[in-house]
């Protein structure tokens, strides 16, 4: 199975969802299925699945404290410790995790190693860090912005984000910066997988699928806003109904909306079964979230068991004569 198959299958799967939603959205009898049932089911799968996975990880033991130390340890008082990269306190660990989760600290270190006339040359390469950051933050802001559909009155904060996000006031309705960023960043992540040979070699169908899915979500969202208008009042009514657990299915929202919802629902339902779970896993990764304090404070392994250690007595019994001859003290003459 080569790249073409992986690509074809993941793109095909996303297109199939689009077609099904387009057709289904046109049939008014099916609209409650795509507008209410599918979103509810997807959200339930997401919630239960996500919690299950995180609890499952959380319940598995951490037998040894083995963080990767990326800075100076706490040692003699006159040597300056790197409290973030080699934390020795909970506060330090929190600092390290904040940098990791919110600023992608480790990805920021990324360099590119290349071969040039027999030497390895290291180039700074912040594109992946920038792309990942742009993608995750624009996705987050877009998700938060969407809360205005589910809340009445719309909280001040969400209106504020809306305002800032659309501050350039390009076109009417206003173009959101995050829409551009998201589509741009996802495209970058996708293209990177396709044109960088190493990336192409390591990428799987399940790497392409979420990218196509999110790209589809972005494109259908933008289409809905600018080109194929939907009845926004109906959308709000539906969203409010879903949020208040009194779902209603307004007439005439427009089929493109069902495409958007179907793709988002797929993303939700797919989430717990996929690599997207890194969102939960990053917090639990023992490579980062433990303090380097093994020598100062004993870490307890819940399943530690005694093992057979070759005893000194056996050792001396084997070598006693030789030890005596060499003048090495023995326990029994």
């Amino acid at each position: 199975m080569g790249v073409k198959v992986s690509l074809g299958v993941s793109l095909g799967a996303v297109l199939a969802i689009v077609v099904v939603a387009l057709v289904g959205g046109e049939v008014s009898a099916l609209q409650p299925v795509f507008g209410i049932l599918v979103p509810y089911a997807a959200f339930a799968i997401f919630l239960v699945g996500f919690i299950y996975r995180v609890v499952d990880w959380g319940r598995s033991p951490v037998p040894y404290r083995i963080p990767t130390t990326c800075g100076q340890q706490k040692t003699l008082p006159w040597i300056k410790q790197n409290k973030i990269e080699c934390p020795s306190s909970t506060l330090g660990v929190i600092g390290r995790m904040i940098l990791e989760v919110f600023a992608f600290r480790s990805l920021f270190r990324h360099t590119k190693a290349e071969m040039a006339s027999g030497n390895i040359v290291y180039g700074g390469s912040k594109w992946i860090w920038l792309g990942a950051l742009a993608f995750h933050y624009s996705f987050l802001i877009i998700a938060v912005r969407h809360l205005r559909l589910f809340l009445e009155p719309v909280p001040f904060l969400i209106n504020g984000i809306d305002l800032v996000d659309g501050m350039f006031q390009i076109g009417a309705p206003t173009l959101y910066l995050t829409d551009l960023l998201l589509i741009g960043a996802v495209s970058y992540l996708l293209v990177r997988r396709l044109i960088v040979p190493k990336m192409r070699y390591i990428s799987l169908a399940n790497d392409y699928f979420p990218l196509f899915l999110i790209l589809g979500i972005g494109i259908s969202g933008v289409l809905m806003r600018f080109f194929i208008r939907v009845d926004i009042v109906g959308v709000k009514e539906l969203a409010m109904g879903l949020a208040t657990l009194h779902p209603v299915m307004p007439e005439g929202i427009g089929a493109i909306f069902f495409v958007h919802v179907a793709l988002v629902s797929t993303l939700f339902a797919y989430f717990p079964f996929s690599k997207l779970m890194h969102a939960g896993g990053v917090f639990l990764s023992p490579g980062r979230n433990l303090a380097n304090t093994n020598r100062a404070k004993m870490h307890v392994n819940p399943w530690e068991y005694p093992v057979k250690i070759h005893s000194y007595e056996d050792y001396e019994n084997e070598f006693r004569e030789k030890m005596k001859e060499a003048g090495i003290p023995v326990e029994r003459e």
Partner: protein
Amino acid sequence: MAKNPEYYESLNIDYKPPRGNWMDRPVDIKSGIYCYPARPVVLENVGMNDRSDWGKYWVIEDEDWELPDDWKERFLNKMRDMLDKYRTFKIYMDICVRCGACADKCHYFLGSGDPMNMPVLRAELLRSIYRGEFTKTGKILGRFAGARKLTKNALKQLWYYMFQCSECRRCSVFCPYGIDTAEITIMGREIMNELGMNIAWVQESVSKCIHTGNHLGLQPQAYKECIDAMLWDIEDNVGITFEPTFNRKGAEILFVTPSGDVFADPGIFTLAGYLMLFEHLGLDYTWSTYASEGGDFGYFTANEMAKRMNGKIYNEAKRLGVKWILGGECGHMWRVLNQYMTTWHGPIDFLEEPVSPITGTKFENAKAHKMVHIMEFVADLIKHNKLKLDPSRNDHLKVTYHDSCNPSRGLGLFEEPRYVIKNVCNHFYEMPENTIREQTYCCGSGSGLNASENMELRLRGGFPRQNALRYVADKYGVNMLACICAIDRAALPPAAQYWNPDVGVTGVCELVANALIMEGEGERTHNIRGFEIATWEPEP
């Protein structure tokens, strides 16, 4: 300064992977890259994963690897067991997004261009089996979810590449989720250990360690003789005569170092450094022939074996009634000491919190573990002006420092050795920042891979380090590479012979010993290697 060897310039490693899918790669096991498998007889006296219950010797070149009939079941049972026991393993199997940040961080990949040496794919070899055998999506979607079944070919590939990882953790520094390929390799090796699939170099060391206490198989009298031989050299070159003690009850400190220091050049000169330093201080310490190996070769087979090896150190400290333990220059020894030892055997209530008898400094960072790193100990001595030093005796050396992987990324020991080196040498130069400290490269032979039959792998894996070394050799005339790891001292010289034939290798304590002004010493015209200081040109 000699120019780069010709093969250096012509070296053109292609980092572009081939077309197609790695899962379709045939098993292609190359000589020069793999290590010989362990003979079952070697492990008979160890009693663990020794193939004795099906008793078949195993030849890599053969089509059939002589696995037991229920090999698949054994493999999967062990894997399930480990997934349940280690959160690291479970999470690292689940959350990789294949972002590629680790891809060009591995010294074996950079030295060989073999795409399966990209850490992500090394892990995917096991991860794909995890998906195919343990997850529902993998079972249903198969290769569309990056899953595959455990087959003999998959197992062979796994074995081949798990023994091309030196567990150095460089990739884990760059991973946005802190996924540690070393951890995955450790799990993979332990699982395959269940099928008796380990290598001779590791297993024979384990076997020797169990009985004689050290991986060289030195019996007590031979261990003592090696140290005695070094004492004669010190007498010749320094003009001082003294006798350290062995297995002495009631000493204040037990000193443990990797046995490589006792036996192999240039490690023996690091040993001379310890001996001279402790004599100079009048330290109340003892050597042990029973706990005569700081390195833990069990760590390269299975957790239980690692614990069995390591347990001797505390056992001996207890038997001798020492107050605390001082540990010599070693790499994975210190990873194990720092990250596993107290958990394995603690709480350690039969020893006292380490206090330097010379300076009175309390080593608070070691108050539970009760072991101090020699670099912490020496840095503290120098800071308190307890050593008389003449760094000009090292003036013929232009020194750079190789951060050994394990003390760097498994302990965080960066400043102590630098402080020591700068106080005993006048000429110190750092290699490029992408190749030192937490981004340091492996020597190319860590985690039990410094056998002879895999020399091509070792030289290739050693290339990124040697390339950085070449840079400072050309730029500053660096002629000595200092390190704090016994495997480094064994592995860097052959790599340097190939890539940097005019750079020598030394332990930091050797540099200390050369600069150390000892009471009653003779005229120091010769260094502790026995060369005349004025005319000496180091070589690997």
